[in-house]
């Protein structure tokens, strides 16, 4: 199992159970993880602690579109991947037009999550 020490991931939105599962698997892989239910707290955190990767649920991002658009315009080296539970093409269009680096279907399991994080960061996870 590869381990990545010190890289920061911020998770935003989704159910508490989902966030907790993501937290467990990603910290188990050596990431420094912060998880937030809502955009306001996440964006406040990101102001002071930029992340290598932000995984944010599209529905949550859409609820605070203006703030996210502002963040995405200034995100620097952070990669931002939006997660959608819907397969509607219009979601992808909206995600990329906001300025996201990628838009993926919400991983159904933790293995898929690990793959998505690995792909986003260009590394392999165990």
């Amino acid at each position, binding site marked *: 199992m590869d381990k990545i020490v010190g890289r920061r991931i911020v998770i935003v939105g989704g159910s508490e159970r989902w966030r907790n599962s993501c937290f467990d698997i990603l910290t188990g892989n050596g990431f420094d993880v912060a998880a937030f239910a809502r955009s306001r707290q996440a964006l406040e955190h990101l102001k002071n602690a930029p992340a290598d990767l932000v995984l944010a649920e599209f529905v949550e991002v859409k609820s605070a579109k203006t703030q996210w658009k502002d963040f995405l315009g200034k995100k620097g080296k952070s990669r931002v991947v939006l997660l959608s539970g819907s*397969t509607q*093409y219009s979601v*992808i*269009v909206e995600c*990329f*037009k906001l300025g996201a*680096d*990628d*838009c*993926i*279907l919400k991983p159904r399991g933790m293995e898929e999550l690990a793959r998505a994080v690995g792909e986003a960061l260009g590394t392999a996870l165990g």
Partner: protein
Amino acid sequence: MVQRKGLILIIEDKPDWLRKLAKACEKAGYSVRRTDNYDKAASLLTQHDFDAIVADIRLVDWQEDNIQGLQVLGVVPPQNRPATVVVTAYPNWDHVRLAFKDYQVSDLMVKSEFKTPTFLRAVAKAVGTTRAKRSGQ
């Protein structure tokens, strides 16, 4: 002398759509080059500095996995590539994601929901984006 608003390349395999998109652009004041196939599109892209591209994803209609409309964009390196508006009949999740992620298209619309004013706004925005990129903004 009529001043044209920009040079657009339209890549579309269906004749009626090729006519419709070209006519809309020409009526809006753009100069248009048009083609229905990959090879001609590639040739045009290397010969001209287009201000925007309008491209269908699938250039061979019966081939479900055909994405030549996107692949031909790769003929131009990303830093020189004109902004692209995709107009597609088949908004397949994977192809739409590929269009934005790998080919950095600027907009995408589906033919079943096509509206000329929306299309022309997207073209105008694409032209603006290309020109801003060229002038180093």
